[in-house]
């Protein structure tokens, strides 16, 4: 069966002006228990790659620059 790509909104937002991933930071990517954050090869900033979030917040709490905001996933909002 062929695959489709269906859109989905993701709950985690990264403020690119604050994120210092290009300086070597990977804190949010490191701490996420579901391993759903990545550093974008295009922008050099962190972003949510997979919509598989437990809205637990270590990414936001541990980000040294306050760049991450966790929202409640739409389905349960």
């Amino acid at each position, binding site marked *: *069966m*062929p*695959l489709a790509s269906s859109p989905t909104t993701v709950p985690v937002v990264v403020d690119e002006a604050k994120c210092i991933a290009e300086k070597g930071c990977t804190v949010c990517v*490191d*701490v*996420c*228990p*579901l*391993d759903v954050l*990545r550093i974008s090869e295009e922008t050099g900033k962190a972003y949510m*790659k*997979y919509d*598989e*979030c*437990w*809205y*637990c*917040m*270590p990414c936001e*709490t*541990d980000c040294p620059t306050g760049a991450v905001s*966790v*929202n*409640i*996933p739409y*389905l*349960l*909002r």
Partner: protein
Amino acid sequence: MDEIKDGLAEVACDVLVIGGGTAGPMAAYKAKVRNPKSRVILLEKANVRRSGAISMGMDGLNNAVIPGYATPEQYVKEITIANDGIVDQAPVLKYARNCYGIIEELDRFGIRFQKTENGDFDVKKVHHLGAYVLPMPNGDTVKKALYRQLRREQILISNRYMATRLLTSRDGHVAGAIAVNARTAEFLVVRAKTVILCMGAAGRLGLPQSGYLYGTYENATNSGDGYAMAYHAGAKLANLECYQINPLIKDYNGPACAYVAGPFGAYTTNAEGSRFIECDYWSGQMMQEFYNELQSGKGPVFLKLDHLHDETVTEIETILHKVERPSRGRFHEGRGTNYREKMVEMHISEIGFCSGHSASGVFVDDLARTTVPGLYAAGDMANVPHNYMLGAFTNGAVAGEDAADVASGIDLPEFDMAEVEAERERVLAPTRREDGVPPNQLEYKTRRLVNDYLQPPKVTAKMRLGQLRLEEVRDDLDTNMMVRDAHELMRSLEAASILDCADMAAAASLYREESRWGLYHNRVDFPDKNDADWFCHTLLSKKDGRMVAEKRAIEPYLVQIEEHERSAYDRQRILKQA
């Protein structure tokens, strides 16, 4: 990151701990301290810094047995009664005796418990039967404190490795484990003299009502891999039909925290604002009452805080919005719920396996030993009933020390490389398909079937149908699942664990032909408790490739339960029909 690489490495150690959440770090630490010469490896699917149920800390210790407040014997009695008598008391008693020492040790690690102005632990009583809670208002630093201890002891940590199967020697002794890197799909073979499983609950078994796969009560990393691995290694699993189901904030799927708000005067009510819970113990019986109220004309169910003083509510909020599930505040904000004005709607969670809150886990004795030589289990996945966070720490410590002792007396067991090869084939098969079903769809379907067919009230004919449907899913999983990168590969392995757990849930539930533990095992066609035939553990295991069930006698009680104590509890039992 995430592209699939071909890699295989082999390492060896004395003690291998799998799962670095709560029990795991403690087990690794204790093993190392017990025998500083030993090599201890802690393997974690996520990252030990923030993994597991306690990722952001916990509101408090639910079951602290603190001298001067409660005695170990009292505690054992309560747990025995709350668990309808199906308890081997030795591990529970051991926990009750050891846990205070562990609290003191955690305090030394820098984990912050609530203290009085005299610097003593500020223990709160929950009800007159003697349930005690020790709050941790700044508990969000728990993992940091544990991580620090692991670094100090120079424990070898492997983050982002997902264990998939255990290795055993020809004579049946555990010999290590196979793991896959969650970001590269490289394989790691860890040879070990003893292995401790600390992989948490099977939290992704039922589907939350929101339909969001990761909107689970449990940390969604805990997909039941530990249960599946123990099963495939031949270990026995106990009382899996005694599901975990918890009261929750509706949709948010985080606890409503009667434990936090309770001591401040909050309580659970029905829509009329009246309390309805009769049962004194956190148990399946209580959940049955909850369920009945939800189904009745008096539902839904609420957490009531609107009678509390503004300042008290603020105090509760600062705890609830900082620790454990801190996004709770955001959820309420989004819906415009203010604790001061509105009661909070509650519901019940999806089903799972968990001994931390219930009693479904890998069978262990009071040294945390499973039925496979050299293999241990601790925390939510080991069947020491209702042991919660402090049980994970305490029993993790027990396992760590014994595993270190045993390891120091034996040689590294041999293993069969063919087992590794076979596992690589199983794991990588979905990467070799050009076309097929992605893991998220297989997982969704499995969990939807769990809700439709295996969730209580349990009906025999439905569960049998459920088994047939799950077999079809297994067929797809074996022949048709497809993944495109290493991350999806991890999800595909989780989907397989979840399916294994679903099969176990069905088999265990069908085997026990009575009703017990309130809602947890409410079997509609066997509505009564039947002590004559079923006052025993039920054990599932894999024999010659097949799932078999057997009974196991309860060990004679160490703390006797008086007839009147038991009957007082039985009198609280209510009709199961809603």
